[in-house]
């Protein structure tokens, strides 16, 4: 990841001919694309078109790729939410506090923030529950709250709407609106609700 050409009006993400190859096959290809700071962009494409792979590259998790990919945020300022989120064993609250702990937020603020975001996603009543007993949608909401509470510069959400009910989708839209400073990428195999994103790019099966 080299430094971008024009540093004054640079974009959050600058992709030049990004290609990821696994097992001899190109599994993700993105031609020249930029994502502006603060934008919320949808990434659609059929199953297996490389959406998750793209997000993993942008998150800094997947590092084996060809082409260029410049991200204007340190890896620690990017947060990625898995397509099928992984919750640490413990309570819902402890999960949402996890990243805040890493950022040495004080205990009281941590809890306050965590509960606030759990409320926004409609699962504050589950704060003390052990994650094992959550329903699919409740797990998703917890994972989203755990990411959003960090208000990262770059938020990478892999199919966040997959198992949410309409109210949940609404809560995502409203929550993301609160993250003015963040650039947000949202994948989906089917078209996203138009009010959620400002733009959408499409991946094609290679």
């Amino acid at each position, binding site marked *: 990841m080299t430094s971008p050409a024009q540093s004054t009006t640079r974009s959050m993400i600058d992709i030049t001919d990004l290609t990821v190859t696994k097992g001899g096959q190109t599994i993700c290809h993105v031609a020249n694309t930029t994502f502006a700071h603060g934008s919320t962009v949808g990434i659609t494409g059929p199953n297996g078109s490389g959406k998750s792979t793209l997000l993993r590259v942008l998150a800094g998790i997947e590092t084996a790729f060809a082409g260029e990919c410049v991200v204007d945020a340190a890896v620690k300022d990017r947060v990625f939410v898995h397509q099928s*989120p992984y919750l*640490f064993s*413990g309570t819902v609250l402890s999960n949402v506090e*996890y990243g805040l702990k890493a950022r040495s937020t004080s205990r009281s603020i941590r809890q306050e923030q965590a509960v606030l975001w759990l409320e926004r996603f409609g699962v504050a009543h589950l704060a003390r529950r052990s994650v094992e007993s959550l329903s699919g949608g409740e797990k998703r909401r917890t994972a989203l709250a755990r990411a959003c509470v960090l208000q990262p510069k770059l938020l990478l959400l892999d199919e966040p709407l997959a198992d949410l009910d309409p109210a949940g989708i609404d809560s995502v839209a409203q929550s993301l609106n609160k993250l003015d400073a963040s650039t947000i990428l949202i994948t989906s195999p089917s078209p996203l609700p138009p009010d959620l994103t400002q733009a959408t790019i499409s991946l094609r099966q290679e």
Partner: protein
Amino acid sequence: MIREGILEALQLLLRRDASVIDAATRSLWISIVAVIAATVVGISAGLLLARKRFPGRSLLVLLLRVGMSVPTVLIGLLCYGLLSRRGTLGELELLYTPTAIILGEFFLALPIVATLTHGAITRLDPRAFETARTLGAGPLQRTVTYLREAKLAIALAVLTAFSRCFTELGIAMMVGGNITGRTRTLTTATALETARGEFASGVAMSLILLSIAMLVTLAIALLSREAAEQVS
């Protein structure tokens, strides 16, 4: 023999036989110190080998696995060679002290803890690692997280190592010396009673050892459960 052994064990315990209590206490603290040290080093090694990529890593994993097959007599011999008056560390005058046994048992426990921890961490869901990283957890928080996610397996690793140390004989005999009142442990006492032909007393000693092991097993089960709740 078993019945006599149980009776004798009860008698020894009831009249709080000084030499038995002495050996039992020594057995216990020696193993605990050795296992704690091996746990710290072994868990670190296991984590490192599971998470970091570096040349020679798989060889190290293999060596640690083979390390579980180092017989206690060999550890005893090597420690003796090290601690003997003519050995490298002879000046420390550690031969025939509890410290010498701890040193040996540390090497006995280390590969067990490291191998089983490595296995436990390797088996974790890869998303656990990715999630911890993407949420910005530093090395310490990550370590705590991985250990918590693998806590049952790691508790079993520690228990296995403890069982091994608590019941081992070769090291305690060789570098401890089975000296009455100084380095005698429950296993060397068992061996002595056996050599003397006092089989029932041997069984009694072992049964006392077993009842302590039962307490430690329960303690490890409780501790690992509590640790899980605390760190969260």
